[in-house]
């Protein structure tokens, strides 16, 4: 299953305080572990909300642009990973290994094909694969 791991903002991240060399090294080691375990698909850090904008929609679909920073620090996202794991529990065990000292990390599963039913019968699947190969794809 695919999950998005959302690292919530803290006062430090919102102030734009950059990690120390040690913190960078620890995060690098953790990321390397994720890659070597084959679970990492993507991940990055985000600038503070002061660098961000929001687009708000009204009931009629009209929109207006709001400038950051935004107030609700704990609800803001400071970084993310996308992982492919075998279960939500596995994702949680990985998160517990992350080198954070403060803050909250939220794990959210993606919708996937499995959520939309498994109607396909074995015969149909097999036919699909053979035809795919027949056309060289």
């Amino acid at each position, binding site marked *: 299953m695919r999950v998005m791991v959302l690292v919530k903002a803290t006062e430090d991240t919102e102030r734009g305080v950059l990690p120390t060399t040690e913190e960078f090294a620890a995060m690098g080691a953790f990321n390397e572990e994720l890659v*070597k375990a084959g679970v990492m698909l993507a991940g990055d850090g985000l600038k503070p909300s002061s660098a961000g904008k929001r687009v708000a929609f009204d009931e009629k679909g009209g929109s207006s642009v709001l400038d950051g920073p935004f107030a609700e620090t704990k609800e803001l996202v400071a970084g993310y990973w*996308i992982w492919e794991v075998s279960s939500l529990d596995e994702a949680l*065990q990985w998160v517990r290994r992350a080198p954070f000292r403060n803050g909250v990390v939220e794990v959210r599963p993606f919708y996937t094909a499995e959520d939309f039913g498994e109607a*396909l019968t*074995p015969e149909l*699947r097999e036919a*699909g694969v053979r035809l795919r190969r027949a*056309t060289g794809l």
Partner: protein
Amino acid sequence: MTSATQRTVEAVWRIESARLTASLARTVNDLGLAEDLAQDALLAALEQWPESGVPDKPGAWLLAVARRRAVDTIRRQVTLERKLALIARETPEGDDPMDAIEFDRHVGDDVLRLMFTACHPVLGRDARVALTLKTVAGLSTDEIARAFLIPSTTLGQRISRAKKTLSNAEVPFEVPVGDELTARLASVLEVVYLVFNEGYAATSGDSWMRAELCAEAMRLGRMLAALAPDEPEPHGLVALMEFQASRLRARTDADGRPVPLDRQDRTRWDRLLITHAEGALRRADHLGGRGSYVLQASIAARHARATSTAGTDWHSIAELYDELSALTGSPVVELNRAVAVSMADGPTPALSIVDKLSEITALRGYHLLPAVRGDLLLKLERRDEARSEFERAAAMTGNEAERTLLLDRAASC
């Protein structure tokens, strides 16, 4: 036991088992014994964690337990005294060994050794697949048996025999070097791609488990690519699997009927997997790889980049098939080349490729040969010949849905 704790133990196991088994195997230089010890540690965790809670460093906990068992086991075997000394030396003394033990920095190398050992050519293909899923992927015997539709006891025996074979052959726990590396790496890649295709081709069985096999294979492939980053073929295999898997949700319609590539809703392709695959392929290219997985991934990439069948770079696909055909000598690859040539240059040159293939014994009875030939003849408006080719293909296939499809095509000629 609470099911929550059990799930936690299983999750920890998925993360730790390869490193644990690998680290133990290096110490005792015996994969079979290492696997037994790791399983003992897993049982201990299942017994104790519901009471004690999950330790802060679960990996270190498991390793400490397994090493203690190793010492106990080997103490009973006088002939293995030398190994005992080795373990005693590696097990730190102290009030609480749990604090002191952490995986060392060579653990990645150990996991790579584990992959090479589990895929050793002294083992048959089925044995390599089973042992890899058990020791590297950390799946249970039941899970593997379910995925491959065989009884759990059969799978268990297969794994025991494999471990015994490795032990009897005194297969060293190491990563091969030099010329041997290429051949041994091919064996590992083959196992990973077999697992993927077992899931992707899903001829029967528990469909959920089958999807898991694809995910498992991609995970194993990414592990291999990360642990042997200078080898192009693992990156190529990762890219190939990810490009193929990116179409999983588009290749069947709402009723589960297969949707051929030219009619797939390309907006449903998994863009994140494609992006990741492109990255893996770039690394393979950067390393100068032109092996069969890199070439297949390059072909898959041409499809992933196209917004439509017409907009597909068929010329470069035909060239890549040409290179792949020369490399593998496979008539099936040559048949695929014919399809690409037909898209790039029209049916006439493609038909001459297919006609040459008709003389090859290995393809006799291969229904896709007349199916492709029928398709080319139809494009050339040679309808009678096309119809008889589709009928011939329909008679050859053992698959009902496919036969229907081919007979429909015959009827429309």
